[in-house]
Structures are given as structure tokens and as C-alpha cells.
């Protein structure tokens, strides 16, 4: 950008995420607005998925975006896309909120297991998390995995549990938990490579 910072909203809207981040770092409010409009819903949705209630999710998303704005969280291109980075910031904040026991009530929705959890959730317990991550209907990448693999991955990613905590919860050897994590992630990764179909797979690779 040759030292000049883009502030024109119309042009900001057309910047790629990675370029936009440089303008956000320069404390241009309109750039932050564009960033939020692109990723705010995904951030809120992930926070809601992890903390389980709307107020808590709103707090988490707000903390995450303010940390991004105040450059407490720095974007590193090597880490991946801006979207992935924003969501990783949100995930970390949400897990922190869970671990703090923020006291927020679990959400109520059509999911019977969630209702069950809501009734019993005076505090968050491993058993509740286990029930939630065992019962949830899955779509997308995780939904294609065998249950035993998706379960350990969900407990780690959405529950913030370590592999040894998960081994205790499931009553299985640590090595089994770690192995299932690896097999599951490897399968997702291979599927990603194939996601756009065989027509787009490159010949000669």
C-alpha cells in the first residue's frame, strides 16, 4: 500500500481479507466494519456452539473481535485464512469462557439432549459434555467420520478437553483417544483434498 492506508469504504469492501487485515491494524474503523460483516455471523455461531447460550456467545464474539481490533491477537498468514484465524480466536475465547465456568445457562432448543442438559446444568460437567458431543447430529466433515473418531474430536474442539480428560470420560486408553483424533483429522484432510471432485483433481500429482 506504499504507506498510504485505504479508507474508502467502497474499496475496502473489495479488498481480500488478508489485505483488509493490514487496514484494520492501521485502526481504520471502516475496515473493521467490513471484517465484522464478513465473519461476525460465523464467529457468533461458533461461540454459540461452544458456550451454548446467546448472551455468552455474544460476549465471546465481542471479546474476540475487540482483541483483534486492539491487535492483542495478530493475524499471521502462515496460520491460514483470515476466516480460520478469526474462528481460532473465537474458539480460544469460548473455551476460556467455558473453563471459567461463566455461569451462563445452556441454550434451549429442539435438541432433546440439549434440553436434558439444560435441566441438569447447574454446572458444566464432563458427563454433560459427553452426552452432548455423543448425541449431536452431524453434518459436514465431522459427520462423515465414524462416531468414535468424531466424538473425540468434538470433545476436544468444542469442549476444550485434553486427550487425557477425554480418555477418562470415555474410559479408554489414552493411546486410543489420540489415535482416533489422528485418524479422524487425517480423514477430514483427505476429504478436503477431494472436496471439489475428481474432475478438479490435478493430473500428474
Amino acid at each position, binding site marked *: 500500500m506504499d504507506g498510504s492506508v485505504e479508507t474508502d469504504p*467502497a474499496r475496502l469492501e473489495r479488498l481480500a481479507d488478508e489485505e483488509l487485515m493490514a487496514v484494520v491494524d492501521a485502526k481504520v474503523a*471502516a475496515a473493521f466494519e467490513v471484517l465484522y460483516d464478513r465473519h461476525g*455471523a460465523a464467529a457468533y455461531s*461458533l461461540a454459540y456452539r461452544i458456550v451454548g447460550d446467546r448472551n455468552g456467545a455474544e460476549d465471546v464474539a465481542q471479546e474476540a473481535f475487540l482483541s483483534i481490533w486492539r491487535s492483542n491477537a495478530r493475524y499471521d498468514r502462515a496460520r491460514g485464512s483470515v476466516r480460520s484465524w478469526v474462528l481460532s480466536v473465537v474458539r480460544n475465547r469460548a473455551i476460556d469462557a467455558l473453563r471459567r465456568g461463566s455461569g451462563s445457562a445452556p441454550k434451549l432448543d429442539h435438541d432433546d439432549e440439549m434440553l436434558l442438559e439444560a435441566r441438569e446444568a447447574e454446572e458444566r460437567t464432563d458427563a454433560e459434555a459427553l452426552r452432548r458431543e455423543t448425541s449431536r447430529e452431524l453434518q459436514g466433515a465431522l459427520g462423515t467420520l465414524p462416531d468414535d473418531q468424531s466424538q473425540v474430536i468434538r470433545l476436544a474442539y468444542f469442549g476444550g478437553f*485434553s486427550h487425557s480428560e477425554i480418555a477418562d470420560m470415555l474410559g479408554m486408553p489414552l493411546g486410543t483417544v489420540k489415535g482416533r483424533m489422528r485418524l479422524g483429522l487425517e480423514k477430514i*484432510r483427505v476429504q*478436503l483434498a477431494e*472436496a471439489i471432485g475428481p*474432475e478438479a483433481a*490435478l493430473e500428474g500429482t
Partner: protein
Amino acid sequence: MRDASEHRDRWQDDVAAYALDALPPREAEIFEAHLEGCEACREQLRWLTVAVDQIPQDVEQLPAPPQLRDRLLSVVDSEAEVPRETTAPEPAPETRVRRLPSFLGGFSMRPALAGLAAALVLVAGVVGYQLHDSGGDPGDGTRTVSAQAAKGVDSSGALEVEGDHGSLRVSGMPPTHGGDVYQAWIQDRDGGVHPSSVFVVADDGSGVVSIPSGLDGAAAVMVTREPRGGSETPSEPPLMTARLD
């Protein structure tokens, strides 16, 4: 062989657990110390991190509460070096349609052409390829690659590449559905597909998107239609592909 086997046995599961942030602090420290000196594990971690990044994409998508946006922008305006000059209109509550600022007037995203996406079949291949020098910098050539549209899509595109970055100019793109956007993707030579920029097009289907990085060594740039905000993996076969190899 034995060393490689022992290495795999010792660390391969830790890579996955680490990628999931599931190693307890002490084990994470030990693994990070190992990681510093082990390219194989670093490479494996990079590979698996892409899978981890996919996990939140499966979460049910909800509209963020309007008050969250209002609060954030209020704080941001008060702390900004460059505050917003005009007050943006309130977003319609509970809407899933992307609010476009008035300055984009013509770039509305009206629902249309429903059902097109599923029927698209990728036809890979470069229609045209040429090299030319950029006028202002004769030593640093750019090249322009034509993009091939999928069957049934009457669109065209030209990808201008300069080193690791470039821009893709498209025309005749179908209108997006409410809230949807177009997204560019970079396919590497291993077949991996990485998300790049999200963009919208004008009413006449034309637009330009910057590809800020990742083109050096890339095999292709593709365009798909994606939900608002873009995706981590393509949701449908590409509408358009520009092959670089």
C-alpha cells in the same frame, strides 16, 4: 527405517492432539520443543491444521445479534485512528441477506437462477495463455491466464498473475442468491485447495477480485459461489477455473 518408524510411533498421534489443542500444557511444551527441530512434524501439523480449521465450518450458522455489531462499532469508532465518516444504516434484524452499503448501489445480490449450482460440472483447462510485460516494470513480467467456465455457465474470466499475487477479472457471472458471495480458491500442485478472497459482482455479472498471495507454485485458481462470508472448503464444483500449470 527404524528411526523413522520410532519417530512415527512416538509423535504422530501427538501432532493430531496438538492440532486440536488437546495436549495438556506440559505435553504441549514437550511437543513444541520437538517441533522446532522436526520438519516432518511441522509439515504434518500444517497438513492437519487445515482439517481442524474445517471443524467450525460445520457449525449451524446463525445471524449475529444486531446489538453485537452496534456495540463493537461504537467501541471501534471511539478508538479508531480513522473513524467511520458516516453512520451506517441499521442492519435489518434477523436477516440473512448481506447488508450492502449504499455506495455499492448497483451491486445488489438478488436471488435468481435457483438450482444452477448443483448442475455445474467443471471443465478444466486453460483457454488462453499469454505472457506480457507490464509497462511500468519491464523486468517483472505478468501473465494473463484465461479462465474456463463450467458447462452451463456463460461466464468468462481472466487471471492476471504477477509473482505470488494477482487479480481475477470476471464477467457474465450469474447473480448470487440472497447473501451468497463468490469466492476464489487456490489449488496447489498437491491437489490441496485453499480459500482466497471473497467478492461480489455488479448487476451485469462483472467484477474484479484480488488474489493477494499464494499464486507462486499454484496449479489453478477457481471460483465458487459460497454462503455469506465465504467458506473454508468449496461448497460446490467451481463455476470457473484458471489453470496455471
